[in-house]
Each structure stands twice: as structure tokens, then as C-alpha cells.
């Protein structure tokens, strides 16, 4: 019997046909734009287009890193991602464990619903919250300070505090979503395990330490791997809506994605901007492949693909 692709095509032609629309769209909207990555090596001019512009060697990369911008946005992206990974997953794990231990059904369902709510609103609205709390003239915080007879503070001129603000809002937005994942793996634990532990006289902390935490270990590892694979990708929507176009804060809050977007808006040196995205895409891909390769060697069942 022939096993070639032609045989398969003939046998399953209807199935292949059903894949055509999605496949074509993926090619047009995701694969073809990848060719634009070569702009990173070109002196891009709008009139000449992607393929007509002249080659420029590695100049774009040199500009990007010699100006210091490249290092700064890379450092910010990586540090923010690490900070957000630890805080948001940490909070979600604590929340999931506590919620799982709650005994009052109504309270449990109600709080779970409320904690999940921030996932459903757009970052535009979150940006409104941030501005309502921190803005100098009418912000909640400054109103409170004024009432207490203290000096008003202009948070928007204090770069140092923004990592905290960003990581708090990130954790806030995702705590519900992530805790659902952990609650699902906790509820997968056999109830008999807990009963046996109770009979053996394990206290609540021993219960959590020896049963719950090992049970969510695989999920924690998967979540960390997924996030590490995105370590060079900044959450554009979050940074852009929380920080906005605020020049005073760029040093402390600019990630690769916001930098790229701003340059795209102002059309300032598109080649250099493209160099930043090229370097981001390629490095990100390399990191995912490497991490996945290592995980496959050590604990194959945790590999992402």
C-alpha cells in the first residue's frame, strides 16, 4: 500500500480541504509578515518598501545598542517579567490554596467570582483606575494625603515606584485567572489523601506542604516555563495603559514593546526599531527552544512540545 502524501491527500481530501481556510489565514497573517524581519538589516524607506530598501548590514543593531537604549529596554523587559512572574504566580498559588481550604460554599463561590473579575476588563479601564488613584490633581491617593494634612505627591515624577505599581496591577489583573489553574490541579487530588493525613495527625501546614504543594508542582513548572519563554516580550497593553507616554518614566518602565511602538508611531528610525523586534523575536525563540530542550532531557513530561 502506498503511504505517500499523494495517497493521504486523496484519501482524506475532505479533511485537507477543511484545513485550508485556517492554514491560508495563518500563512497570510502570521508567516508572510515574518519576511518583514529583514528590515532590521536594511535602511528602510517607505517609498521603497520592505524588499526595495537598501541593505544596511548590522548598522541598525549597532545604533540600538551603542545608544544604550537596547540594553535598557532589554534589562527592563527581563526584570519586569521576572518580578511579575514571581509576584503574580506567588499570589495566585496562595489564593488558590486558601480558596481550596475554605469550607463555606457561598463565600467560596462569591469570592472566586470577584477575584476573577479583573481578568474581564480591558487595560484601558485599568489605566483609568491607575490614573484615578495616582494623578496629582484629583487622585484618590493625593486627596487622602491632603485630608490627612500631608504634602501631595506626584507619583508620575517618581520612576522608582513604578515597578511596584506595575507589578501590583499585573498581579491584581491575573490573580483570578491563574488561581483557577491552580485550583483545578488542587481539586484533582484524591480526597483520600487528605483524609489519611488527618487520621495520621498531620496539621494544616503539613497537609499543604506534603500534599497540596506536590500536587500543584507540575502546574507551577509549566507556568514558569511558559513565562520564561516570553521573558523578552513585554505585555504591551499593560505597560502602555498604565504608564502611557510619560517621558519621565521611560528609563524605569520602557520595555522593548513600548519602545518599538513609540518609534513606530513617530516613524523615527524604523530600521533601528526593526532591529529591536528582530532581536526580540529571534532571542525569544532561541530561549524557548533551549528551555524546552533542557526540560525534555531532565523531565520529559514537563516539556512544552
Amino acid at each position: 500500500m502506498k503511504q505517500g502524501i499523494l495517497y493521504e491527500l486523496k484519501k482524506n481530501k475532505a479533511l485537507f480541504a477543511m484545513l485550508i481556510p485556517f492554514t491560508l489565514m495563518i500563512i497570510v497573517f502570521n508567516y508572510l509578515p515574518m519576511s518583514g524581519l529583514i528590515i532590521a538589516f536594511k535602511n528602510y524607506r517607505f517609498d521603497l518598501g520592505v524588499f526595495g530598501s537598501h541593505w544596511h548590514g548590522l548598522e541598525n543593531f549597532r545604533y540600538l545598542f551603542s545608544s544604550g537604549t537596547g540594553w535598557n529596554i532589554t534589562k527592563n523587559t527581563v526584570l519586569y517579567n521576572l518580578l511579575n512572574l514571581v509576584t503574580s504566580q506567588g499570589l495566585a498559588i496562595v489564593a488558590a490554596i486558601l480558596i481550596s481550604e475554605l469550607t463555606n460554599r457561598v463565600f467560596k463561590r462569591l469570592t472566586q467570582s470577584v477575584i476573577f473579575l479583573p481578568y474581564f476588563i480591558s487595560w484601558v479601564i485599568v489605566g483609568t483606575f491607575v490614573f484615578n488613584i495616582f494623578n496629582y490633581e484629583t487622585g484618590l491617593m493625593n486627596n487622602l494625603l491632603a485630608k490627612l494634612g500631608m504634602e501631595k505627591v506626584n507619583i508620575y515624577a517618581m520612576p522608582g515606584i513604578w515597578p511596584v505599581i506595575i507589578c501590583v496591577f499585573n498581579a491584581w489583573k491575573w490573580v483570578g485567572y491563574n488561581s483557577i489553574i491552580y485550583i483545578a490541579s488542587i481539586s484533582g487530588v484524591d480526597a483520600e489523601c487528605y483524609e489519611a493525613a488527618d487520621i495520621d495527625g498531620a496539621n494544616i501546614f503539613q497537609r499543604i506542604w506534603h500534599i497540596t504543594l506536590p500536587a500543584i508542582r507540575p502546574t507551577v513548572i509549566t507556568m514558569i516555563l511558559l513565562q520564561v519563554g516570553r521573558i523578552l516580550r513585554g505585555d504591551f497593553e499593560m505597560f502602555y495603559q498604565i504608564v502611557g507616554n510619560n517621558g519621565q518614566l521611560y528609563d524605569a518602565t520602557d520595555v522593548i514593546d513600548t519602545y518599538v511602538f513609540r518609534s513606530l508611531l513617530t516613524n523615527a528610525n524604523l530600521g533601528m526599531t526593526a532591529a529591536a523586534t528582530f532581536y526580540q523575536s529571534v532571542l525569544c525563540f532561541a530561549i524557548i527552544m533551549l528551555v524546552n530542550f533542557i526540560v525534555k532531557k531532565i523531565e520529559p513530561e514537563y516539556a512544552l512540545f
Partner: protein
Amino acid sequence: MQPAARARAGNRIRNSASRKVFNGLSYVIIGLLSLLCLIPFVTLISGSFTSEQVIRFEGYSLFPKEFTLEAYEIVFKNPQKILNAYGISIFVAVTGTFIGLFLNAMTAYVLSRQDFKYRNFFSFFYYFTTLFNGGMVSTYIFYIRYLNLKDSLLALILPGMLNVFYLLIMRSFVKTIPPALIESAKIDGAGELRIFFKIILPLLKSGLATIGLFLALHYWNDWYNAMLYIDSENKYPLQYMLYAMIQQQKALASIASQVGIRVENLPTNALKLAMAVVTTGPIILVYPFVQKYFVKGITIGSVKG
């Protein structure tokens, strides 16, 4: 009583004490976390019913001091713009969700077929786009220059349909349908398309509801694509219109403070909040009814497709 049994009983009493303390703490912590998730929404809604003077001089509060519909009256005095943005948002969300859902389900069905030899090849072909992409610059240039998507609603609709994560979740849903059903339909002489429409789709209701809701939420909250691709104001979806309004307000306020006009005459905080409520309202209204589908989707998605 045997000494060991006595010790165990003692343990249990001590444990039940530590259990009580822990439980109490869980209720307090989860309760506080829920409040933190809820308060911004409450202040948002309360602020939108508060008069501008009160916001300016006393700040936001959980309940409006003097209930007023001032802000909503302004919002609906010129309803044309808002109704138009609503129309755009609804149109984009409905078309995108329906077509996207159909493509998603059809593709996921083929990928789930164990007798389809190239299922892994295609799965990886799609999955690869989540590992590597052209980045913001090349995608943007490609979309406007070669696909002609500038200022087109298609730019808001098409890219959102290609979410591979949703595709993998849907594949997990399809896999719960027993293959024997497909086999027996085949023996009865049904074609692939017929099997998909008559057998798979009706059995896939909860998968369709789940992914459909994820898609709808994504479209409703999207402002990023509008910011990149849409120029004409009459094509702004709601979220972007809100964003543009906030930006305008900030710009006006900063100009006003430079030239020394009193800020009272500018678009107000309450107006902004009322717009935010109008934008988020539909989500909050349906939230209690659709929440369970999101929980299901997240749970399935975390079990790795």
C-alpha cells in the same frame, strides 16, 4: 487508651485548633483580596454618579454622596458617537466570533482525528506562530502595505481569529467525543463535512460556548489593533474611543494648566467614568452567567493540549 492513640487524639485536638486559626485567616485574606478586586469597580460606578465638584474636592468614595446623572446626561446628549462606537464594537465582536468560532471548530476537529496522518504536522505549523513571529514592526508594515488593512475593520476582525491557544483548547473539547460515533457515521456513508456539521457541532456545544466567549471578550476589549490600524473616528470601537477621549482630556488639561485656564470647563472626570461604565457595562451584566465557561476553558487549557 493506648499511649499512641492518646497522643494521636491529642494531636487531633491541637490540629483542630490550628485548623481553626488557619481557616479564620483564610477567610480574612481571601475576603480582603476580593475587596481589593471589587473596590475599583465600585468607585468607578459610584464616581460616575457623582457630581464633578464632589470628585474634585472630596475625591472618590464607595457610595455617591449626592446621586446625580449629570455625567450620563452629557454622555447621552450626543449619543451619535457612542452609539456608532457601540455598533462598531458589536459588529466586530459578532462577525469575528462567529467566523472565528467556525474556523476554529472545523480546524480543531480535523486536528483531533487520530486517523489523519498529518495532524501533528499541522498542529505544529500553527503552534509555531506562538513561538516565533515577525514582531510589531514587520507585521504592521506588512498589514498596511501589502494587505491594505489601514483603516479597515478587517484589521480588527481577522487577526483575532487566529488564536492557536483557543484552537488547542477546542481540540481538547473535540477529543471528548467518542471516535466510534464518527466511525459509525462513516459506515453509514456520511461525508466528512456532513459528519462535522451533523454530529460534531451539535455535540460540541460547551466547547463552542467556551471558545466563543473567549473570542467575544477578546474582541470587545481590543483597542490595540484599533490604535494601530484605524484612522477614521467613525470606525473607532468602544474601547479605543474611550482611550482616545481620555487622552484628549489629559492633553487639554495639560494645555489648560500651561495657559492658565480654569480646569472646570473641561471634560470631566465623572464623564470619563460614565464612559468607562458604558463600555464595561455589557461585560459586567453577562459576567455571572458566562463565568463558568471561562473557568472551564482555562482549566482545560492548563491541562496542556
